[in-house]
């Protein structure tokens, strides 16, 4: 039961709310709300105001969820909002769903793909894209649809190659419509 868990442990069966700032941290290694919001701002230029009204939670080591509401802390449920970020590792990794949801107005580390490249990316293929002169690491891959740029998902850019991280379950969706 959650009642038996000491407050300084990370417990895999419940969602624990992130501390507001690093100074409020009780559980070792748990990122703060401020650090998570700063990460989206620094990496992709996502306006911190986008996350006003959101609460942030950890379930299992390093898996961070964003929830657009208020619930009691801790809470023992199967899901709480959206998995947005994997932390407790050297390079934090954003999720496909979060990039689609929050990076529509991203200003940094967005790589625009041609129609053919977008299709290959969504099919899960890695591709050589030497034109990128920005940072290495996790990028928002985007393409133009209905006249505007729209995020497709997360690409890992290393040594001139863009690796697709689109999950298998999402790859099939390009051909499914019923």
């Amino acid at each position: 039961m959650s009642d038996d868990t000491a407050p300084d442990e990370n417990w895999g069966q419940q969602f624990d709310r992130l501390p507001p700032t690093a100074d409020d941290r009780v559980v070792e290694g748990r990122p703060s709300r401020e650090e998570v919001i700063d990460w989206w701002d620094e990496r992709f230029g996502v306006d911190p105001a986008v996350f006003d009204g959101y609460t942030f939670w950890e379930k299992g080591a390093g898996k961070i969820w964003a929830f657009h509401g208020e619930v009691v802390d801790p809470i023992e449920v199967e899901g709480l909002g959206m998995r947005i970020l994997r932390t407790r590792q050297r390079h934090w990794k954003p999720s496909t769903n979060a990039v689609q949801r929050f990076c529509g107005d991203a200003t940094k580390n967005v790589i625009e793909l041609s129609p053919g490249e977008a299709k290959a990316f969504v099919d899960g293929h890695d591709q050589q894209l030497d034109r990128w002169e920005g940072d290495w690491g996790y990028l928002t891959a985007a393409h133009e649809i209905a006249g505007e740029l729209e995020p497709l998902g997360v690409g890992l850019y290393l040594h001139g190659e863009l690796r697709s991280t689109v999950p298998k379950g999402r790859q099939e969706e390009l051909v499914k419509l019923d």
Partner: protein
Amino acid sequence: MNPLQRYAPLVDDEEAFFAACERPLPSVVRVNTIKTTVARAREALDDEGVAYEPTDWHPGILKLEDSSPGTNWPYFHGWLHGQEEVSALPAIALDPQPGERVWDTCAAPGSKTTQIAAMMDDEGVLVGNDNNLGRLSALRHNAERLGVTNLVVSNQDARNFSMKPFGERTPGKAGSFEQFDRVLVDAPCSCEGTCRKNPDVLDEWTMNHVKSVAGIQKGILRRAVQVTKAGGTVVYSTCTFAPEENEAILDFVLEREDCEVVEWDVPDGFETAPGITEWEGDEYDPSVTKARRVYPHHNDTGGFFTAKLEVTA
């Protein structure tokens, strides 16, 4: 026996009813306004060469002229969700508002849940519950693809749904609550209304199943009323024509819980019939006529039943 024969005395036009039940249903998608606008989704479909026609009663619900096997970017982006046209009704009757606390008792795979999230502007507390863990993973997948961030996924038996995880026993604690503003009971049922999509439901139909599922429906609707605050709304819906699973369930719960059936605003241009008060020797509370029945020949959809209840204490 074809169970649809039972309902012939209820419909206004028997021939049209049986003829509609034979025809396959068109593919229908709902535009997900959490991730895009109706105009942009339609522009994207136009660009892909996917032919569609908006429904008469809802600009964001589009009938596809044929299922497109080609690439479909708007679907990939979570701008569209396949949802049977008539199944958009319960969320409309529920009328959820941003910031409210809402419980969807039988949520998986999540078409109605995600529609509710969009109507809440993806803000507040939407609890999507299902007793089947396998189906819950479909709910999670759909919700994440559609960009929903106000959903709490829960795995309980709705008949004895516990409010304990939400802080019922610690009312002073931030974020805790004991009751919902609105609850949707889209109940498991015998599903004859989906026969245009899945004709097997007619072969599998038995009276024994109707009786057993009615017990579950009563239990879920009672619990829904109990955990809704006074003045709050409970919507009860099924995709069956069986009065035993529709008006009889309302009648049972009206006698035992503090609630009443109220009218709800059916969209203009969508034809419905009132709930019935007599069936095979049983009589139901007169207020069940405020519930709405949808027959397949009315609007060229599946069959459906939707009732709106107001909780009185």
